[in-house]
């Protein structure tokens, strides 16, 4: 199997994974609104990676999403970056992004998170979503490079 095909397979799996993940985030409040008790399991899965505080979450169907606004921004940003990836790099290059770019897009989320934790300011959910989304966009460029390199390395062993 050609390298581009293998990386394309990794790309497709990653895209499917993030779509399922985001789908579950929106599914949880829908299930709860319909009184389907499976919603507890779905919320429970996300509780491992998110505090799920209602005051920090967006609402649909009258109930909070499976994750908070910042986490939702990160995952939506990841999806956006993933969609943009083939247009920017194609699927034959596994080069990691420049460090300076990583620090630049990480600075807003680090500052915002630190300021909120220290009580310096209290940002709205929209701001949390935006800084999370900005950081999330760059993440697939790391994820695909690393997993792709691992897949290609296994073939050589």
């Amino acid at each position: 199997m050609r390298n581009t095909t293998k990386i394309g397979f990794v790309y497709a799996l990653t895209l499917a994974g993030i779509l399922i993940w985001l789908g579950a985030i929106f599914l949880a409040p829908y299930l709860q609104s319909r009184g389907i008790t499976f919603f507890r399991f779905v919320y429970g899965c996300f509780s491992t990676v998110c505090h799920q505080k209602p005051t920090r979450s967006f609402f649909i169907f009258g109930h909070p999403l499976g994750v908070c606004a910042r986490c939702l921004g990160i995952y939506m940003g990841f999806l956006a970056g993933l969609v943009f990836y083939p247009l920017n790099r194609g699927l034959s290059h596994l080069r990691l992004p420049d460090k300076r770019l990583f620090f630049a897009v990480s600075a807003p989320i680090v500052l915002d998170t630190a300021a909120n934790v220290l009580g310096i300011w209290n940002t709205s959910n929209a701001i949390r979503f935006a800084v999370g989304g900005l950081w999330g966009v760059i993440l697939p460029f790391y994820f695909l490079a690393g997993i792709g390199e691992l897949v290609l390395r296994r073939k050589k062993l």
Partner: protein
Amino acid sequence: MNGQKPNYLTPALIGGAIAGILSGIPVLNCLCCLWIIGGAIVAAYLLGKDAQTSLTSGDGAIVGAFSGVFGAVVNSLVGIPFQAMNLAFAKRVFERIAEYGQNMPSDWETWFNRGAGPFSVAWFLFGLVIAAAIFAALGALGGIIGVALFGKKTSGTPQAPLPPPPQPATPPQP
């Protein structure tokens, strides 16, 4: 590049312990998945510190995934005594806010009740498996980022001395 595989275990254990403990402590766990990614970055840094040559992003993915799994175990264990404390603290905050007539989100009582209830070993183990899978994916991402930030080295292997340049041929004396 030498054929020795890096030692993933120790850095992964340290990174996973850091991520698991910090993500289980009340107040600090508000950083959500960032602790897991941060712990994996630490694991990649420790792996790169001891490595003789530059790491690849695949090495970062491996050490990060292990770090995530260890972090899930530590987080699950740390979370047991803190869970009740977390909920009690948050409930007091929300009740105090409600006293001042602030508009409360409609689901805050459901959020509390979701975390309440007696401890069950079966649910604990099931939750641990779910957490390990999720933490492994996030950890792999963190490990790759860590290698990108800390894993590259200037050449660590000593170079053999270069041979002296050939002397220009001297023309024969007349």
